[in-house]
């Protein structure tokens, strides 16, 4: 029998694609349950204070209403169980506008929605702390030790001595994830066990946090999440709505469907916080950086801290003898911020890479040459060697492919009709990690036909997990892909890392590969034979006439990975056209050249990168969540007010991957690409807007009014 050709690295179509294009892929609310009741959350209409009274008389009498649950009758939950953002109906205290204060459960969705409007609440109001502009100077040192001041050398001295420097403040607004699938749960109890159909980027994390919150053992909670309608960080940590669905189902003793409305998304499942970042750069006349200071001021929840690491890129991107990275934070009456695509890196890089562009312009240097000049040969933050770093290659290949030589150094030199056209570049990075993950591989033989089932509690939120694991297992077992069935997204399966922070592909694919290698070895041992050329598992199943065989592995990153600093890197190129009259901006072309180690599937990888680019273009041009400082509510609470990019906002996007073999990062050399795609996009666009118009916009998003 001839060898099966390898499929890893080839652009096969998405394995789950057919289920998706036919509408058969079941997302949270698509799972069939018998006789469900429908729940709607009730939310506070103040940002700070205490509930005095909840009058639910009218709602209780409304047709079809089965239960109304508030802090007065909710079961005791563990507020430190690991769900994010509080709002578990445990007290009358209000910490942010739109905090959950109750649940209405009714026979139908229409009845629940109607009844939820009949509830009146009286409050003891306190003045909310929501105006970041006024509160920023009260910001304090973070509690998080990783956000302590990180200092190398003497930045003050370097800055005071430098002729060429940039000291500017860059603002990024609050943003929301707004995955297309709003967070939703179907809760179904069976005795003291509950099954929760609920999108989860971290399946096991959702299980343990919910169990702890509900005062249950993890094995009493099952999370089922085979398909996730987008997450982008908001479905990483889970939020109160997940536990409250279980509470409601228990209360009414039947399955309950609880979906957040789109409007409720703005204050239910986290946000990316407003960051005020001051960057100070100093350089010698020939373009060698002498100081880099990145000072971030931001906000967190009133009683809980989360700070996205805006200074991370500044730690690793450039070689400079003097560096200072700081964070200050002010608690506010808004929901807890959380991980949002490219957390810290995308916002931080907007500041850093804009400042680099500003300094290059002052130095009269090409911004690519300026970056290459300051390329570090080791990780400046810890002195470790890079496991691989294709930054320079990304910049050079990108310049060639994009036609960078056509860029004018001076702004306002490229006029096309009623448009100013400009080019911008920015460099991005995101750390690469493999996290512990278990995988179970089962082989079954019928005659000559060998089929594999691969099981692990991994997540696919459109990232391509099903596809790359099918490819990985097929190659590692010697099977064609149609004989491999990957089952993920269920906490009953072997525990796995989350699909967060670009660790998914590395963690899952290495675990599956490890399991397949282990299984093959066990089959060899079982055969008692010696082989000159090692047979595949599939061949062994046939030659040894084994009908069923399985093995499980608990996979960990290689120990030596710690000796290296591992990151994906990319160079981003934008061409924008700015309408001279109206200030409307269009990104005509965008190119990302990425060094991310082994690319398991060029088709899904390209999609990940261009998807990150679209996010970045939204961040650069359209996305902003606005708080009314008087009441603490979001005035941008719908998709009509919060502008994510439409199809027409997106021009031509191209992705190039550097053929990079990273032998240190992990066995398969996979670095991850989910996050790096967004990281430097906003800066590339902002730099292109400067090149087009001469206008330096340091406050995102760059809406038409800012370039008039």
């Amino acid at each position, binding site marked *: 029998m001839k060898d099966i050709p390898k499929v890893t690295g080839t652009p096969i179509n998405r394995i789950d694609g057919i289920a998706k294009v036919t509408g058969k892929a079941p997302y949270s609310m698509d799972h069939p349950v018998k006789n469900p009741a429908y729940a709607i959350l009730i939310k506070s209409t103040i940002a700070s204070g205490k509930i005095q009274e909840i009058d639910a008389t009218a709602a209780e009498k409304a047709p079809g209403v089965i239960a109304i649950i508030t802090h007065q009758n909710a079961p005791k939950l563990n507020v430190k169980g690991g769900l994010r953002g509080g709002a578990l109906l445990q007290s009358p205290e209000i910490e942010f506008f739109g905090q959950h204060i109750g649940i209405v459960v009714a026979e139908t969705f229409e009845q629940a929605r109607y009844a939820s409007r009949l509830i009146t609440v009286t409050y003891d109001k306190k003045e909310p702390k929501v105006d970041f502009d006024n509160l920023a100077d009260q910001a304090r040192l973070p509690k998080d030790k990783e956000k302590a001041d990180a200092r190398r050398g003497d930045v003050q001295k370097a800055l005071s001595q430098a002729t060429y420097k940039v000291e500017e403040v860059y603002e990024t607004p609050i943003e929301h994830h707004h995955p297309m699938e709003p967070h939703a749960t179907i809760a179904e109890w069976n005795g003291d066990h509950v099954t929760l159909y609920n999108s989860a980027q971290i399946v096991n994390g959702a299980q343990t946090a919910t169990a702890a919150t509900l005062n249950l053992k993890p094995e009493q909670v099952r999370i089922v999440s085979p398909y996730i309608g987008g997450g982008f960080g908001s479905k990483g940590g889970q939020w109160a709505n997940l536990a409250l669905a279980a509470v409601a189902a228990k209360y009414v003793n039947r399955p309950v469907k609880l979906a957040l409305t*789109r409007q409720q998304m703005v204050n239910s499942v986290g946000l990316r916080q407003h960051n005020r970042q001051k960057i100070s750069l100093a350089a010698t006349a020939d373009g060698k950086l002498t100081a880099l200071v990145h000072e971030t001021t931001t906000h967190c929840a009133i009683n809980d801290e989360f700070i996205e690491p805006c200074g991370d890129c500044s730690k690793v991107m450039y070689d400079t003898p003097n560096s200072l990275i700081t964070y200050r934070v002010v608690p506010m009456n808004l929901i807890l911020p959380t991980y949002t695509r490219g957390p810290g890196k995308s916002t931080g890089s907007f500041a850093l890479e804009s400042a680099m562009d500003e300094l290059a312009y002052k130095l009269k240097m090409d911004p690519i040459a300026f970056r290459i000049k300051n390329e570090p040969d080791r990780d400046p933050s810890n002195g470790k060697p890079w496991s691989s770093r294709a930054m320079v290659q990304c910049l050079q290949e990108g310049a060639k492919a994009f036609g960078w030589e056509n860029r004018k150094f001076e702004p306002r030199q490229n006029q096309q009709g009623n448009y100013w056209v400009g080019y911008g570049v920015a460099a991005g990075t995101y750390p690469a990690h493999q996290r512990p993950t278990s995988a179970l591989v089962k082989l079954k033989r019928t005659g000559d036909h060998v089929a594999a089932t691969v099981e692990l509690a991994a997540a696919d939120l459109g990232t391509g997990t099903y596809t790359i694991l099918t490819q990985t297992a097929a190659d590692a077992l010697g099977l064609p892909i*149609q004989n491999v069935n990957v089952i993920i997204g269920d906490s009953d399966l072997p525990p796995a890392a989350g699909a967060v922070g670009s660790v998914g592909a590395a963690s899952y694919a290495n675990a599956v590969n490890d399991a397949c290698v282990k299984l093959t070895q066990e089959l060899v041992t079982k055969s008692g034979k010696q082989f000159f050329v090692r047979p595949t598992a599939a061949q062994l199943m046939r030659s040894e006439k084994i009908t069923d065989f399985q093995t499980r592995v608990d996979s960990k990153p290689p120990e030596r990975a710690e000796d290296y600093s591992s990151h994906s890197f990319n160079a981003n190129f934008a061409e924008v056209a700015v309408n001279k009259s109206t200030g409307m901006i269009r990104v005509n072309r965008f190119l990302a050249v990425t060094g991310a180690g082994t690319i398991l599937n060029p088709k899904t990888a390209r999609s990940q990168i261009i998807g990150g680019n679209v996010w970045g273009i939204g961040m650069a041009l359209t996305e902003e969540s606005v708080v009314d400082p008087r009441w603490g509510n979001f005035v941008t609470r719908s998709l009509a007010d919060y502008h994510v990019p439409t199809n027409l906002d997106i021009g031509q996007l191209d992705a190039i991957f550097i053929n990079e073999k990273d032998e240190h990062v992990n066995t398969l050399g996979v670095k991850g690409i989910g996050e790096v795609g967004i990281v430097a996009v906003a800066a590339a666009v902002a730099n292109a807007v400067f090149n087009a118009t001469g206008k330096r916009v340091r406050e995102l998003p760059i809406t038409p009014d800012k370039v008039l």
Partner: protein
Amino acid sequence: MDEHESPELTEEEKQLFADLMPDDLAEIMNTGVNRRHFLKLLTLAGGGILAAQSAVAERVLTRPSRETLPVELAPSSLENGVDIGLKVNGKAHKLTIDSRMTLLDTLRERLNLTGSKKGCDHGQCGACTVIVNGSRVLSCLTLAASCEGKTVQTIEGLAQGNRLHPMQEAFLKHDGFQCGFCTPGQICSAVALLDEAKKGHTSYVTGNVRQPGGPVKLSNEEIRERMSGNICRCGAYPNIVAAIQEVHSGKPVEQVFRSA
């Protein structure tokens, strides 16, 4: 500037492919994978990849449908009940619904057709797009009560048996989605959009709307504008445009996977 020109295969190449893998010729002809890469793939794969993909198709499409009988509710759950009869994906349904019930919730909660998605419930995302009497509409802003006697086509009704609709195939090939949640709405929207083009409909990016009607050939920019009512948060827009252009133009649109 952004149109990846589709590579027409030469006669020699067609012959080569036909010799190598006669069964998959049609597939190859429809797959705009860059030629050189495809040749490499062929040598490596000997046809296994395409065969495997169709095997997966078989597996999903023959999976027993979750469609069951319409969910009947106790009369107490109905307020202002309205009797309606409508045809969904060729099948007639008669049911009594709460006057407040949208077409989207009727499809999902009463007819077990969960392909259409609730992304915003306010007409701001397009995930609930279905085709009613031949026009794409938002089922979240359509009262089921107003659908008496109407014909509704949803994502579940596009494939013919095990055969995908060309638009579904093109989305699959061009990876016109990531998470897949907006996909049913995107595909329904795209299918109806092609009919609008045939009818000569114009758009805001059409240079001169005064030009007389008749079928129009859509540029990628036209497709972008006409698909702007379908938000894709994963950012698959360029792939969605490629998929629609391929079906609209009837010519394969090349997929380019670049490395350096």
